[in-house]
């Protein structure tokens, strides 16, 4: 229902707020569908970071949307036809939450049966993410890294000069907000560390910890001032962190190669196979966490430092 409101409304600011609520609701649905790790990520990313990024864009462009002069019939027709085709396609799909569905017959039972013995990690999502499908995860970290670099390049040309006062994302003139947020930030960062290092045993891991960590620093930037955050993370520090996380990931792969295993086969990292797996997963998740944190902070700073349109 919220999604319909997004489609109908014209005030972009309200749309972004609704979109944040929509993300939070989605996270709730993920929890009820047993996907706790995913819900974690969606709540931190959808309701937190992407809302801030879209708001920053609105502040730099325009808040009101123009009335569209497109004809509404053609798009509506296309959408209805596509939807009807998809509904027709679902008639062959297995029933919802059917344990006999084909998706539960392939590799999933093996992961559930063997993963804990093979990797020593009870959270199967973490085990699959960092060990069985570590090639995929490496690719995804690379995508995030590349997107971060691209955002920095695109926006760096419009960076406002030091002497220009007045930052659009600055909330530091609200005293209550400032003090409450200052109390909360240490706990957010502590929670992020917990999520990072406890991801083997409970829901959590590098991606979630990275976005929560970044959210803590973004909150700091919003209430205390962008300049203060920038003085902690200069561009070169952020670039270095972004690259070092990815390099740590690839480095683990290279070390396993040198030790005589396949690329990213953690069994060779220690004499005991399970211990090796545990070390590999730990290091790789750490790499993911560093890259995600640095990229999110870099994107936020790049957006907040763009000069306001005249």
């Amino acid at each position: 229902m919220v999604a319909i409101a997004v489609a109908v409304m014209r005030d972009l600011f309200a749309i972004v707020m609704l979109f944040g609520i929509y993300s939070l609701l989605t996270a709730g649905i993920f929890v009820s569908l047993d996907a706790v790790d995913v819900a974690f990520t969606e709540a931190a990313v959808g309701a937190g970071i992407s809302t801030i990024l879209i708001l920053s864009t609105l502040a730099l462009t325009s808040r009101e949307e123009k009335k569209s002069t497109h004809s509404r019939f053609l798009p509506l027709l296309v959408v209805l036809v596509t939807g009807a085709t998809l509904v027709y396609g679902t008639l062959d799909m297995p029933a919802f939450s059917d344990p006999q569905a084909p998706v539960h017959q392939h590799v999933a039972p093996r992961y559930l049966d063997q993963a804990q013995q093979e990797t020593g990690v009870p959270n199967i999502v973490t085990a699959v993410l960092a060990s069985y499908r570590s090639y995929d995860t490496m690719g995804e970290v690379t995508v995030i890294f590349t997107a971060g670099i691209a955002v920095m390049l695109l926006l760096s040309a419009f960076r406002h000069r030091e002497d220009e006062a007045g930052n659009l994302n600055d909330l530091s003139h609200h005293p209550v907000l400032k003090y409450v947020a200052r109390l909360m930030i240490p706990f957010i960062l502590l929670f992020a560390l917990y999520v990072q290092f406890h991801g083997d045993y409970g829901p959590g891991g590098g991606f979630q910890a990275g976005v929560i960590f970044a959210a803590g620093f973004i909150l700091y930037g919003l209430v205390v001032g962008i300049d203060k955050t920038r003085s902690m993370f200069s561009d070169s520090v952020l670039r270095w962190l972004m690259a070092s996380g990815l390099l740590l990931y690839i480095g683990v792969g290279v070390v396993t190669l040198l030790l005589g295993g396949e690329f990213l086969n953690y069994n060779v990292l220690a004499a005991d196979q399970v211990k090796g797996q545990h070390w590999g997963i730990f290091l790789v998740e750490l790499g993911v966490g560093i890259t995600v944190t640095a990229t999110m902070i870099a994107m936020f700073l790049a957006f907040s430092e763009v000069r306001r349109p005249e």
Partner: protein
Amino acid sequence: MSTFIDLYNYWIFIFLMMIGFYIVIAQGNLVKKIIGLNIFQTAVFLLYISMGKVKGGTAPIIVAGDASYSNPLPHVLILTAIVVGVATTALAMALIIRIRKAYGTIEEQDIHEQDASL
């Protein structure tokens, strides 16, 4: 009726996906198009996660004793997809800011008009 109860999850996601699709093709504002794309994306996420659900199952974190777990594989795929999604959204937003600097507008039609008048 039993078809509806068995398949309602897919139909909800198709509905959401079509809302997102409609926003992308019918609206002229670039920021709104990206939000539509994001709704489309979450519909796909929900489709994957709901396929992983097993009746009576619980979150795939192994506990002592017998328990049935939901399928962890879709969770892994979607977990990374969400973070990649926000990275690409940020890239799109950066491009929109550049477009606004170059054209002075973020409405698709105005941009086409300016292109045509060159």
